[in-house]
């Protein structure tokens, strides 16, 4: 076991209703990594994330985080789910939502320290003006930022994010990723995304999941590789976000 290996999956298989979602997967995430899990729908992206979180158990294989089973180190993992899974009518202000990140088995009530940690985390995602705003009045991108703050306020060593850019506009995406880039100096980040073209500009490596797992450094991504992952030609839209004055060209 290497000290800088934060997450290791060894020979993991997972089946759902007799269908193999993941087959003999090996994966190592090193400390300080900023990686995105990409792949087609039903390819096992979310399953991989849930296995790492310990929400589901693999049929075969071993998962270790900081050298321990996932459910033993949950306190050190920050998790941001998709906000679309949450009830849009739930009466809660931003403070209430982020305080959940300070939940502990041993404490029934939140202390002043908990509240201060929450305020720091909200500040880190640039949402201080919204502490007392109703969570449901926020836009999609603002909700994502609040859920990142909730994951951050337990001071995790690893941050896992499920589709942080789902249902948000372009500018918000850029904004979210610049926040994540800043956080990456302090923690390992692993996210799930359906949008390979976009994330490849920011992340250090891409983990392709389609029953099997292949890791690519982002510098090597090209059309042939994507074809390989998705098993077929895709309509690809490249958005490099760096347009010249004459506009940009597609290749």
């Amino acid at each position, binding site marked *: 076991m290497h000290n800088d290996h934060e997450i290791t999956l060894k020979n993991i298989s997972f089946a759902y209703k007799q269908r193999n979602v993941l087959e003999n997967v090996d994966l190592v995430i090193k400390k300080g990594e900023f990686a995105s899990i990409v792949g087609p729908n039903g390819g096992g992206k979310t399953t991989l994330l849930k296995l790492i979180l310990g929400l589901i158990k693999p049929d075969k294989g071993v998962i270790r985080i900081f050298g321990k089973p996932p459910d033993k180190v949950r306190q050190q993992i920050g998790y941001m789910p998709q906000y679309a899974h949450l009830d849009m009518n739930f*009466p809660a202000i931003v403070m209430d939502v982020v305080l959940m990140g300070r939940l502990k088995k041993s404490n029934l009530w939140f202390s002043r320290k908990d509240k201060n940690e929450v305020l720091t985390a909200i500040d880190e995602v640039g949402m201080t003006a919204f502490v007392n705003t109703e969570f449901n009045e926020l836009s999609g991108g603002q909700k994502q930022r609040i859920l990142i703050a909730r994951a951050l306020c337990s001071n995790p060593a690893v941050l896992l994010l499920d589709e942080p850019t789902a249902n948000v506009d372009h500018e918000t995406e850029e904004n979210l990723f610049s926040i994540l880039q800043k956080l990456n100096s302090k923690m390992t980040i692993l996210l799930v995304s359906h949008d390979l073209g976009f994330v490849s500009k920011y992340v250090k490596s891409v983990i392709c999941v389609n029953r099997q797992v292949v890791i690519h450094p982002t510098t090597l991504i090209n059309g042939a590789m994507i074809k390989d992952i998705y098993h077929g030609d895709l309509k690809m839209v490249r958005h490099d976000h760096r347009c010249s004055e004459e506009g940009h060209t597609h290749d």
Partner: protein
Amino acid sequence: MIDMFYAIFDPDNLFLKYAFIMGALASISFGIIGTFVTVKKIGYLAGAISHCVFGGIGLALFLQVNAGLTWFDPMLGAVLAAIIAAVTVGLVSLHAKEREDTIIGTLWAVGMASGILLIDRTPGYFNLGSYLFGDILLISSKDLLYVACLDALILGVSIIFFNRFFSVCFDSEFTSLRGINTTFFYLLLLILTALTVVLMVRIVGIVLVIALLTIPSAIASFYAKRLWQMMIYSCLLCALFTWTGLGLSYSWSLPSGPTIIVLSGAAYLVLLVIHKLLKSY
């Protein structure tokens, strides 16, 4: 309306005074548990539990009369049925993902039907209508004491575990990642719901229990920014509806249960329309 206020304090009308005190006491439990039921969207589960309670009452009456088990009074049957139903319904909703509503619908119907069958096979006369709509005018001082104890229990548990319940209702998956036993707190919530249903079914009936659990909280959710605010609004609305309903039913000689239901249902529909209109402009 004025003569009603005199009537409440008339010593000959003790039942009316009890009914009003009961309305206030019941509102505390209904407001708190109703809020949880509404935000967690488990009104359907509460409905199934309350109909299973009817099965328990039927079984107790049947055994008391036919098997001579005099110690097995309907209250005991109701509590047992409610707790078994709460745990069953809770585990079904956690584990039987695809068939959840079918299984719970079956429990709902079978609970009710077996209650009716058992009561039919029990000699003596039982007024089925009073189980459905309750008879708030038959309340004794012992009932008031029971409901006061229930209030104390529900207030206590809800205050101690407020943050746990909040988190389980808002985002159960994240809560379990923080090391909290979400299954335990979900089942605890269902058992508290079951206890509320049991005590109240005897007094207000099965139909009214569902109405008072869901309608005040549904209205409160239009105006509340935070969960505890929603609970306070629900309690106040619940008291307002039961008191106004009792007043109307006394003044116009109407049955109290249905009056309260129609009143709160109408208020909900009107406020729902106003709320939607205000939001769209």
